[in-house]
């Protein structure tokens, strides 16, 4: 699993990347009450808005950590946005992307680097 400074995670299997927000982000957001996941087929570039997550505190954009085409969105989040708080780095995933530039993944932080980054915040 790789991480961004904007607190998204990405897990790659073959050429499919699963994207979500980190446990730290979920904790900071507070109770998530709404998630807007992208349409399947949408193409996003790295750093572009991929989804919107809304908690009782704030609405935030979730950026695409890597470029690609959305091949699946987590429909369960519509009825159960609390999944993002419960299991942010597993069942609370937002979307799956078909990677268009796999090299982008390697440039992201690994778990140790992300933990080190969090300790600076």
């Amino acid at each position, binding site marked *: 699993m790789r991480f961004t400074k904007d607190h998204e995670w990405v897990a790659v299997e073959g050429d499919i990347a699963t994207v979500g927000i980190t446990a730290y982000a979920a904790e900071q957001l507070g*109770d998530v*009450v709404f998630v807007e996941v992208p349409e399947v087929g949408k193409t996003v570039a790295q750093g572009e808005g991929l989804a919107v997550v809304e908690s*009782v*505190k704030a609405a935030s954009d979730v950026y695409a950590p890597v470029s690609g085409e959305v091949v699946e969105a987590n429909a369960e989040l519509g009825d159960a946005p*609390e999944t993002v708080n419960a299991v942010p780095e597993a069942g609370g995933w937002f979307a799956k992307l078909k990677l268009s530039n796999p090299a982008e993944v390697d440039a992201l932080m690994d778990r140790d680097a992300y933990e080190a980054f969090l300790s600076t915040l």
Partner: protein
Amino acid sequence: MSMNNVGRPTRPEASNDDAGFASLSGGRGLLQDEPLIFELGGWTKTGVDLPDAVPADSALAGLTRDEPIGLPGLSEPEAVRHYVRLSQKNHAIDLALYPLGSCTMKHNPRLNEKMARLPGLSDIHPLQPQSTVQGAIELMDRLAHWLKTLTGMPAVALSPKAGAHGELCGLLAIRAAHEAAGNGHRKTVLAPTSAHGTNPATAAFCGYTVVEIAQTDDGRVDLADLESKLGDHVAAIMVTNPNTCGLFERDVVEIARLTHAAGAYFYCDGANFNAIVGRVRPGDLGVDAMHINLHKTFSTPHGGGGPGAGPVVLSEALAPFAPTPWVVHDDSGYRLVEEAVGPAAQAFGRMSAFHGQMGMYVRAYAYMLSHGADGLRQVAEDAVLNANYVKARLSDLMSPAFPEGPCMHEALFDDAWLEDTGVTTLDFAKAMIDEGFHPMTMYFPLVVHGAMLIEPTETESKAELDRFIDALRLLAEAAKAGETGRFKNAPHLAPLKRLDETLAARKPKLKWKPVAPAPLAAE
């Protein structure tokens, strides 16, 4: 002697201790729950006797309603009591200090109200001949004159009806100016991280991509970051001054210079004009467009007390794109120009069906005239003085977000001082309700953790400020002493207790369901 005592006691016979008391009916004295008006009203009553409608051929074709409309029926006293009871639950500037930061909840002078109720200004209609409302149109012209004078700008669009509507007006003028100059490719708007949420929302609504400008450690726009993000793709920047941290953007002239050098326009969010009115003219700072919330700086009612009004002043470059209508006058009198004609007038359209909020124009103009130039200058001075008094008297207990130097019209604290107390900004704000005060703005601006933004305004006396500050000091000491129970369940003394915001958002429950609506009268 005559004995006319008929047995009425004159002092309480028991102690006033009401612990464990419960009323017989479940009523709560003067804190009664008020049902929705739909729950109150039957379907058969009406407060007004109207004759049956005369059947007429409808021009609505297939659109004529054939389902009951479902409006509640109440007698006049029922309707009056419902709304008066609701009003008693509402906090208002007429009840006490209202310290919402960035909102400028100042007193609404009664002279304004008297002027706004003059029949010649209130009993008029936008569609009546302009020759019959010359005074009203002249008042608009004079208001426009003083708004231009106070801001040092050559043009003003009076019609926008709120601050965000003014932002929309300003950005539409900017977009029209870029398109007229062949610069329609500029699709980015820059705004600082501390911006009001309406700034990026307005820019996005106009089709722009919003890019954030970083903030310096002392709460101002980071010039180097701004410069690195400016370029041929940028249409405008949106900067609030004084900003939402309650600080003056001291580099504002340089911000304007960099923006103009990059071919972009400078939109200033004028929500905080109250802090500088009479002292600073935004036109002198290089601003191209700025909205003025008449319901803030110029004391017209808001926060449920009345509609807003957000006139937008425009620079020489943007003036030709101002929306219609505007007022002109010549030997024949005053006139509203409804259609832009000629090269000097390239209006992008209009912001509202008519000319805007006449009642707010009258109040704002009355406020200007009753204060005069020296009075308006003192408004700004006293607003800043009051905020600094609040900041100075609370800084030993609470942590100011930007301790260095004075603030402008609002004092901003973060939640560092609550660390390890178990009390959050939200808890603290709710506990203020128990002490009889409306909470301050909380968790805004977003750049400050657990922000508490207090704007006392210039209309509070030192005595009222002291009462407010003393209550906050007692609360702060209680928080630090570990009295978490006082905070976690606050408010204790409100008709409704702490709401479960998460549950309300995830599983909203609409309480009222219609029961057996009556058939339409015609049936």
